[in-house]
């Protein structure tokens, strides 16, 4: 047992429904958002515990009665966060089968089948055309629907595995009995719960009693350092109040029971499995939106930085040493001060190293230990100097002291570390050039300068000092009292300073440079100190000038939305420091007010509103809380900012490729639609039948269209500003598709049609106006250009052949089109044919076309005809023309010829 707490509800109250069922994430409406924007108002952490017990009707020893717990559960609903809407799979299936355009297809299919049934009942030998068409339409709908269903189902399964990671059971006292199997969602207000190391805090709790209880609140506040929590007086801000622990925070330290939290393990395992992708996209629109993203509001800790403290600088009386310098080791050879510092650092620390080398403890202590391991074995030092007494760190003293026995000299050694301002003032002597001298004002001055310099680079500074106790005054049997200190904590010997820092990730600097080139604005939103924030910002390239604007949380609280808007307009480079997670929402809204598409990273529970409000909510796979993952559109499995950049590139690429696919499909619309117009306007026999149109749209076009999404990103993908009002189908694309390439395909099709007709005796001129007699079953002798007379059956056979030739011409030109649509900007000679999926797609397209024409039965079904080989080549001149024209178009676009006028016209 580590801490005994009374479960209360604060944040969760806002989410908690009065009616537990039937409330969905969607109900997080705008009113709620405004509630969430405010700081949480509650006094449950401020009032005395006794009053709290009465208020909640509970007892610290016996807990709630089972009946009362049941009542409360009934009244308030389960102890869960508002779940995301989850559909059962049949509903999901139904949804994917009947959405948007597929409804139209269903209607079409029903109409076709009805028409067939009517014909069946009225005519002796009905034509099966309508039946075929109906079946084809139904098949299309089913295939498309099932495809999207499986896609959705798979991703929902992945999310379910995340859900199963939250703890299921809590230890809780009810009716005076401690049980370990109370399900977390059955906890109610007033329950007394026990939490120990590795546990996820099951609810928002107020601490009744504790021992060395620390929680990792990073999922709430973004702080990477575990904070102490105990039964003390609360502070007005509940998030910082030390007597409250929040649901889903991780208990990291306590009585060393030494059990590795299984939760973390399974999380890491899943993360490892997903590591190949790094980026879990929850909905496809999100990555597409990411491509259009104009602003990224990024967290600092863990996203831009590595989320682990490292020793960066050491200051010892004469100078500052940088750990990263090559001659760092050699410059400290035989430095007395450094030797003592090493001993002090190893001793004055609660971090432990297990036999397997895994370190456990406070982030900064781990960092120091990690640093020391490079020089000495801290474990060996600890053995040499057994610990006698200890004063733990607390926020009033701001230092930590321990007393050790030097086994070699049988003297006691007091080691102390803490905030520099506290330590320096307690020191009288110092080691300069391996000699102990008095602490002069010059040296104090130099130390203060060093402290200030290091603080300005965002480092957390710890000062170290020691004091060898006089063996006569402190004999070996001396009893050290840590409550009423009976040993000197003044007149110490100053050893030096250590600067700690959460270093920026290596790849982030390049990533930020890239997104900035892509016209995306990067802002940092952090709960950290302004100096740290500014230092990291300039280190990673968010701030390129020293006058980067820093807005603190307090500033932000006093700003009107208009002022914030103006500030965003005025300063391009902005860092938000010391912000509370709730302020993120305000920032996001201000950015959106600027008309930006905003991506926001967040891993805490309180980030959820901001993640939802943002156009792209990005959660963290490693440190992200359950809620943030559920709310987010994208989960970065490696928590790395660079992955967002890949995401942006990917998003733009996907959007580009989507455009290519759409363009490809639009182009084939032209040769499908104009024949019908020709049929109506010029009364020629129909050049392309319905079944062959379907064949193109749903058969031969499918694979190449899809395979275009496998195209590599184009040169200009990260060199252009984010698209603001660039729709998927733009006017210039329509111009290109309908006005240019589509017409070439149409010309190719008509050429093939006319040639096949001409070879059979119907010269082009004879075809115009022939329709009425041609399609008349009663006319058994339609005369061609050579006086031959054709029966109805013969004519229809010829019509099929012509339609097949037209179809093949469209297929051939569409194949060329698939090659052309590979690029929007680059030359094909430059890009080459590396897309194997597309190559396969083109091959399949050709094979499908052959199958449709030559396989007996299939060709009667689709009303095509086994063409002569030479008719396959009729479209080639047009395909070549398409290629030449498009290369010319891209050349002009690249060169920005004709004063960019051309670009505007047909650069989609």
């Amino acid at each position, binding site marked *: 047992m580590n801490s005994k707490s009374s479960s209360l509800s604060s944040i969760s109250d806002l989410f908690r429904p009065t009616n537990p069922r039937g409330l969905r994430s969607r109900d997080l409406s705008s009113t709620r958002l405004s509630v969430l924007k405010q700081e949480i108002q509650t006094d449950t952490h401020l009032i005395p515990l006794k009053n709290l017990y009465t208020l909640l009707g509970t007892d610290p020893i016996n807990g709630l009665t089972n009946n009362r717990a049941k009542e409360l559960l009934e009244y308030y609903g389960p102890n869960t966060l508002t779940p995301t809407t989850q559909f059962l799979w049949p509903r999901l299936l139904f949804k994917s089968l009947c959405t948007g355009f597929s409804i139209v297809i269903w209607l079409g299919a029903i109409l076709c089948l009805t028409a067939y049934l009517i014909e069946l009942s009225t005519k002796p030998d009905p034509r099966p055309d309508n039946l075929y068409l109906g079946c084809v339409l139904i098949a299309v709908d089913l295939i498309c629907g099932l495809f999207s269903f499986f896609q959705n189902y798979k991703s929902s399964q992945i999310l379910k595995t995340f859900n199963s990671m939250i703890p299921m059971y809590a230890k809780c006292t009810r009716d005076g009995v401690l049980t370990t199997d109370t399900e977390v969602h059955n906890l109610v207000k007033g329950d007394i719960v026990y939490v120990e190391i590795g546990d996820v805090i099951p609810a928002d709790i107020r601490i009744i009693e504790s021992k060395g209880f620390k929680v990792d609140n990073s999922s709430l506040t973004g702080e990477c350092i575990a904070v102490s929590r105990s039964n003390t007086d609360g502070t007005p801000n509940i998030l910082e109040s030390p007597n409250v622990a929040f649901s889903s925070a991780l208990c990291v330290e306590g009585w060393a029971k030494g059990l590795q939290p299984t939760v973390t393990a399974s999380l890491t395992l899943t993360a490892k499995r997903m590591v190949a992708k790094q980026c879990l996209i929850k909905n496809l629109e999100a990555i597409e939106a990411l491509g259009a993203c104009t602003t990224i509001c990024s967290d600092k800790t863990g996203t831009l930085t590595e989320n682990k403290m490292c020793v960066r600088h050491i200051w010892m009386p004469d100078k500052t040493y940088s750990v990263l310098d090559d001659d760092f080791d050699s410059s400290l050879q035989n430095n007395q001060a450094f030797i003592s510092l090493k001993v002090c650092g190893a001793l004055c620390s609660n971090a432990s190293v297990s036999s397997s080398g895994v370190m456990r403890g406070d982030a900064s202590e781990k960092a120091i230990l990690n640093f020391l391991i490079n020089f000495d074995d801290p474990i060996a030092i600890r053995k040499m100097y057994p610990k006698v007494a200890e004063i733990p760190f607390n926020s009033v003293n701001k230092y930590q002291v321990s007393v050790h026995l030097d086994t070699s000299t049988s003297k006691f050694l007091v080691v102390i570390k803490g905030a520099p301002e506290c330590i320096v003032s307690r020191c009288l002597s110092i080691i300069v050039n391996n000699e102990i001298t008095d602490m002069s004002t010059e040296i104090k001055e130099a130390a203060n300068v060093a402290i200030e310099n290091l603080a300005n680079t965002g480092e957390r500074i710890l000062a170290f000092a020691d004091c060898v106790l006089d063996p006569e005054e402190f004999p070996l049997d001396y009893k050290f009292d840590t409550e009423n200190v009976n040993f000197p904590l003044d007149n110490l010997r100053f050893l030096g300073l250590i600067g700690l820092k959460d270093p920026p990730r290596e790849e982030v600097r390049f990533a930020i440079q890239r997104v900035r080139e892509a016209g995306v604005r990067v802002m940092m939103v952090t709960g950290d100190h302004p100096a740290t924030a500014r230092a990291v910002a300039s280190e990673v390239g968010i701030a390129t000038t020293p006058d980067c604007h820093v807005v603190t949380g307090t500033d932000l609280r006093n700003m009107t939305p208009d002022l914030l808007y103006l500030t965003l307009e005025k*300063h391009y480079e902005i860092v938000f420091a010391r912000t509370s997670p709730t302020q993120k929402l305000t920032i996001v809204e201000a950015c959106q007010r600027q008309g930006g598409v905003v991506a926001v990273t967040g891993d805490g529970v309180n980030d959820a509103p901001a993640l939802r409000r943002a156009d792209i909510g990005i959660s963290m796979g490693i440190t992200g809380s359950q809620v943030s993952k559920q709310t987010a559109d994208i989960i970065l499995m490696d928590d790395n900012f660079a992955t967002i950049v890949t995401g942006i590139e990917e998003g733009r690429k996907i959007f580009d490729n989507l455009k290519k696919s759409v363009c490809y499909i639009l182009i084939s619309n032209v040769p499908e639609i104009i024949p019908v117009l020709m049929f109506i306007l010029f009364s020629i026999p129909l050049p392309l039948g319905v079944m062959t149109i379907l064949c193109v749209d749903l058969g031969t076009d499918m694979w190449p269209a899809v395979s275009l999404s496998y195209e590599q990103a184009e040169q200009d993908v990260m060199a252009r500003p984010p698209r603001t009002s660039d729709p998927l189908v733009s006017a210039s694309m329509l111009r290109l598709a309908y006005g240019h390439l589509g017409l070439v395909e149409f010309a190719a099709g008509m050429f093939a049609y006319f040639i096949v007709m*001409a070879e059979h*005796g119907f010269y082009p001129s004879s075809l115009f106006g022939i329709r009425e007699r041609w399609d*008349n079953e009663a006319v058994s*002798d339609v005369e061609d250009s050579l006086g*031959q007379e*054709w029966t109805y*059956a*013969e004519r229809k056979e010829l019509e099929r052949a012509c339609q097949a030739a037209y179809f093949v011409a469209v297929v051939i030109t569409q194949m060329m089109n698939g090659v052309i649509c590979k690029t929007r900007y680059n030359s094909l000679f430059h890009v080459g044919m590396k897309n194997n999926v597309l190559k396969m797609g083109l091959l399949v397209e050709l094979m499908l076309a052959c199958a449709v024409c030559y396989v007996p039965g299939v060709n009667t079904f689709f009303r095509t005809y086994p063409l002569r080989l030479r008719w396959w080549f009729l479209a080639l001149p047009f395909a070549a023309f398409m290629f030449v024209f498009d290369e010319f178009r891209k050349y002009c676009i690249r060169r920005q010829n004709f004063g960019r006028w051309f670009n505007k016209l047909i650069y989609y």
Partner: protein
Amino acid sequence: MPSHRMEEFEIDRKPTRKPAKQKFYDFLYNDETGAILGRTPESWGKILIFYAIFYAVLISLFAICMATFLQHFINPRVPRLQQDGGLIGASPGLGFRPLPADVRSTLIWYKGTGYDSYKYWEDQLIEFLSEYKKKGQTAGAGQNIHNCNFGSLPPPGKICDVDIQGWKPCIEEDHFSFHKSSPCIFLKLNRIYGWRPQFYEGGLPQDMPKDLQAHIQNLRTTNSSYANMVWVSCQGETPADKENIGPIQYIPHQGFPGYYYPYNNAEGYLSPLVAVHLVRPRTGIIINIECRAWASNIAYSRKDRVGVVHFELMIE
């Protein structure tokens, strides 16, 4: 990018809202930019030039392809794909005249006594046969007419005459016998370039009507050269129709004489005709009539309407 965002004194301006009507007028002609229909005249000019060039190139490509093909591969008087090489096949279909006004129907229906009622059918036939009448008057066409018979086949380039003058009562002057409730229906075989009929020699097909078989056998004994014909037979479809149709007279022969074939797209070529005179069809009832052409290379399928023509007759 940063520079213009850093503007110190930027004033937030909302776009002025215009009424829909004003927007429409602005679209037609915008005073500020001088744009007509959303584009400035300069822009329109460029677009027109661009599209003119593009479409000119596309059309000329199409024209070049068409011209090349038609000139090099297509003979204007000979089909490139003939008979079984193409889709017309080597089995000609059969056609009848007069055709009903309703395009989907094959019913010849009239009131036996009223001139108004059968005038339509008579006019149809007059129009159809006008070609056969004026052959001598058109310049050039008359010169290559050869008076063919089974003994004298036409020399190359010449065509055989179809003399419809003596086909009493199936002549214009006799109203094609429509007014006597015994109408003449004209049959013709579809022209297929280069097609030659294969005449029956020896055995005749089993399903050939007995009277035709007898007729052929009779001809073979009297004048064997007359047996080189594409035979024609008409009969009622059902037993009832067979009864109602009454006797049938074929004028001038019960078939198309072989010397009219092959069709080589010669100038002035006339398809041979057979006038089927239904001598005493029963009135007041629909009679389904099926006429069939007979040669050993004419396929027959009632379902696919091959080698056969079907029509209905109703005389009130």
